[in-house]
Every structure is written in structure tokens, then in C-alpha cells.
């Protein structure tokens, strides 16, 4: 398949709800990015400690609770910010996905926060995409969001009042 025919075919399913494979790949990529970011931060902290102290270079050992808080905080901030501002994380960018409301608008900030926390609490909710007629996960049903194919960047529109009303109507 040539580039032109592939682009012509891809235009057919733009703005359609994405399936499980694409969304899972995007989630894996995002998790890898967060893990890499965490290691980079630890490495940066270790370098600072190495430069400022006489101790040898070593990855700092963070307690479990601190590590959990750090991970949850970074995860929540990352997803909330990306979904609320552009509708897509780096994983969504590579996979050509965008998280929007059922009307195609950007998620409000609180929905983005709730959606990120729901994925943190119950990531298996993504499997519901396999059986959903509208390719919606559990979190999409709860929050009222949708993940669509959107390979061509479009200036995100501000969330409308109707989107903030009844999220469930979007997943019907």
C-alpha cells in the first residue's frame, strides 16, 4: 500500500471511535513515557546528589509511600493536563487518537481528572472496549468521553456547556 492510498483509506475512519488495540498501544506508550520520566528524574536527583555531596553516584532509594505518591501525582498531572489541553497524550499522538466529548469537544478539566483517576484505580476498564458497541471503555461510560481516530491535527474547541451536563448521553 502506497502512502497516497493509505492516506486516502485513513480519511474514511477519521473521527470514528478507536478500538482496543490502538488505545492499548497508546496507553502502553504513555506508561513507558512516564516510567522513563520517573527514571530520568531519579537520575537527575542522583546526579545532583553526586555533584553536591561526596557520596558515590547511586539511584536514590525512595520509600514505598513516597514512591506511590510520586507516581500517582505524576500520572494524574500528565493525563489530566494532556486530555484537558490538547485531548491527546504522547501515546495518543503516536497512535493518532484524541480524547473528546461525544460531541467532539475537549474534555473539561474535572472530567479529565476523574478519567485519569478511574484509569489509575481500574485500568481493566479498558477491556470493555472489546465488547462495547461504541468502542467505549468503562471510564468513557462513567465520565462521558470518547476516543476517536484523529490523525490530522485540528484546533481543539473549548468544551461546551452541554458537554459538561450529562456525560452518559455521549456514550449512548
Amino acid at each position, binding site marked *: *500500500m502506497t*502512502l497516497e492510498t*493509505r*492516506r486516502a*483509506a*485513513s480519511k474514511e*475512519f*477519521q*473521527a*470514528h*471511535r*478507536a*478500538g*482496543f*488495540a*490502538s488505545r492499548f*498501544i497508546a496507553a502502553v506508550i504513555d506508561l513507558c513515557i512516564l516510567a522513563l520520566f520517573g527514571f530520568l528524574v531519579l537520575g537527575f536527583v542522583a546526579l545532583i546528589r553526586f555533584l553536591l555531596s561526596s557520596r558515590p553516584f547511586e539511584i536514590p532509594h525512595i520509600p514505598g509511600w513516597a514512591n506511590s505518591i510520586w507516581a500517582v501525582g505524576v500520572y494524574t498531572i500528565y493525563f489530566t493536563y494532556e486530555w484537558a489541553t490538547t485531548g491527546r497524550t504522547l501515546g495518543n499522538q*503516536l*497512535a*493518532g487518537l484524541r480524547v*473528546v466529548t*461525544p*460531541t*467532539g*469537544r475537549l474534555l473539561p478539566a474535572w472530567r479529565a481528572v476523574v478519567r485519569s483517576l478511574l484509569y489509575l484505580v481500574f485500568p481493566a476498564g479498558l477491556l470493555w472496549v*472489546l*465488547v462495547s*458497541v*461504541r*468502542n467505549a471503555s468503562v471510564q468513557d461510560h462513567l465520565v462521558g468521553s*470518547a476516543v*476517536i*481516530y*484523529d*490523525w490530522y491535527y485540528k484546533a481543539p*474547541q473549548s468544551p461546551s456547556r452541554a458537554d459538561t451536563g450529562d456525560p452518559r448521553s455521549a456514550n449512548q
Partner: protein
Amino acid sequence: MEGNGHQASESEVIAQSLVKGEAGQSELIEVAVVESIPGVAETGSGPKPGPQPKASSTQEGSDETLGSEQEPSPLEFADLVANGVRLAVGAIGLMLAAVADVLGQLVPGPEAAPAAGWGSEGAAGSGPEALAGSGPDAPAEADSGPAPLEILRLLPGAALGLGFQAGRRLAGTGRSINARVGPAASFVARRSILRRPMEALRHGLDAWDRLGGQERRDSERAARQLARAVIPQLVTAFLDQIDLDDIMARVDLDPIVRRLDFERIIKEQVDVNAIADGLDIGRILDRVDFNAIIAQRVDMESIVDRLDFDRIVDRLDLDGIVARVNVNSVVERVDLPGITKQVMDEIDMGEIIHQSTSSITTETIDALRSQGVNADRILSRVVDRLLLRKGERQTRLPAGDGS
């Protein structure tokens, strides 16, 4: 005997014609002048006094007879004497005419003009005509009174007339003597009594003849040597006195040039190859300003329009030319760093790299996304089939979503 008799009779006819004055004076003078010239006298064979056709043809017959005769005859001697007298008289006449001419030029006056006119004609060799005309002119000039100079001017003609008359008389006397004494002399000459003295005389004359011939040849050789030595100097002196520029200015060369066939002269007489070999082409080319010629007189546009560059390029051995080019020296003379810097300044390499890399990345990501879409569809179909679900999933957002 027959030869001598024939010769005697012919000589008599000539002598009689001379005595009777049948031959004009002008012819007599011509004979004298011709015999005085050695070359002409040698080509001629004896006296040719007879101006009339009959006498001339008769004389030719006597010449042949004389050419076959060995012994001299009294008649030849008589003719020789007559011719010698005419020659001497002619020379004296010329000298007198020259003297009169000089005197006429030295003494100016009304009489000088006719005297000069006579002298000039005499000096030109037309003495007999002057002599013939002096008779009628003399009475006319005598009317104005005789002068010593006129008398002097008449002396050459009178001397010539007197000399010629004396010559005629002497020739007539010789012939009459020959007519009377000749038979007796021939008779005596054939006798054996004179044979021995005649033989001795002939031997003596032969010796003298040989000596004379030898002396003549030596004289001729000396004359030729003198001529070779003198003539170049004379010619040089002559040329020094000539103003060739003045002469050439007077010559009208146009008709001469028009009559010349230059094409034939060049083809037959001119060795163009030798001329070309002698030319110093390099020196000529150094004096030629080709730049000025090309800039002012050459229409480069028309020349270029007529050139068939494709044909020229086809005939070129480009491989051979390239093989002869020292590429290394060319590269060494090229400012590659400067050129590279200039090129890099003109090209926005960052934009090119950005476009190329973004294009590659876009294609890669597009392929990845397409594969994800396909995987989504496959999984959906599998699950829908497991769930015995019929119909397509409703994946499209509601109309008017803006997507």
C-alpha cells in the same frame, strides 16, 4: 678563266654605273657606312653599290663567284680602293661638319641658326641629304651676302663632293687598267715562272693572317674584359644621376597595369610556396591586433547562429579530452571551502532536514496508525463473532460533532 671573266664583266658594269652616276650619292654613303661597321661588313660579301634591282641581282651573282675564288683579282683591289676612298671622304666630311657645327655654336648671330641646322643634320648621319640640299640653298644664302662663316659651312659639302668625284675617277682608272693589263697579268700569273714567288707570298700572308687573327681575338677578349669592368660602373654612375621618383611620377601606370595579365603571371611565374616559406608569419601575427578586429569587424552573432554545435560536439572526443585534463590541478585551484560556505549560506539546511525527517516520521507514524486501525477492526470482528453480534459497531460520532 671563266670565273675571272665573269667577275671582270660584272665589275665593269658596276664601275660604269658608278662612273655614270646612276647610283645616288645617298646610296654611296650608305655603302661606305655599312662597310665601315665591322659586323655589317663581315655579313656582307663585297661591294653592293648598285641601288637598282638589275645591278643588285647582278652583283649577287658576282659575290658567289668571288666567294669561290681564292686569289685576289685586280677588280677587287680597285673596288677596295674605291670603297676606302669613299669611307675616308665620308669620315672627313663628318669631321668637317662637326667642326662647322661647333663654330656655328661659338659664333652667335643670324647666321648661326642655319649653320646649326646643317651641322645637326650632318651629325645625325644624314650628310648626303644635306649635301644634296646644300646646292640649291647656297644661292639663296648668297643673296644676303657671303660671310666667312658661310663659306666655312660650305666647305664640308664641297670636300665631300670633291672626294667622291676623285674616288669615281680613281675607280674608273683602276678598271681601265684592269681591262688592259688583266689578261696579261692572268697569263703571267698562270705561268710557272711566278708560281714559286706567289707561293712564298701566300705562305707569308698566311703567317701574317694567323698572327692578325690571334691579335684580333686577344683584342676582342681585352675589349670584353674592359666592357665588363667599365659597364657596371657606367651604369651605376648613370643610375646615380637619375631621379627614379621623378621618372615614375611622369609614368602613367594605369594603362600598363590594365594590359598585364596578373593571373597568368602569378600562376606561371610566381612560386607562392617559396614566398610562403620566406614569410615570418609569427612576426606578422604579432603586429595584428586581433582583439580590435574581432570587436569592430566581426559579427559574432551571425557566426554563432550559423554554427551547428550538435555536430561539433559529436565530433569531439570528450573522453580523450577529459583524460588529458589534470583534474587534481584544477581542484587545487578551486576554492572549495569558500564555495561550500557560499552554498551553505544560500541553502537552509535546517529546513531541508526538518522537512525530510518530518516526512519520514509522518510516513512511519501513518503506517503505524494504519496498522492499529486494522488491528482494531480485527479484534472487533473477533469479539463480535464470539458474542454472536450482528451488524457493524456504531463507532462514528453523532452528526454535527465537528469531527
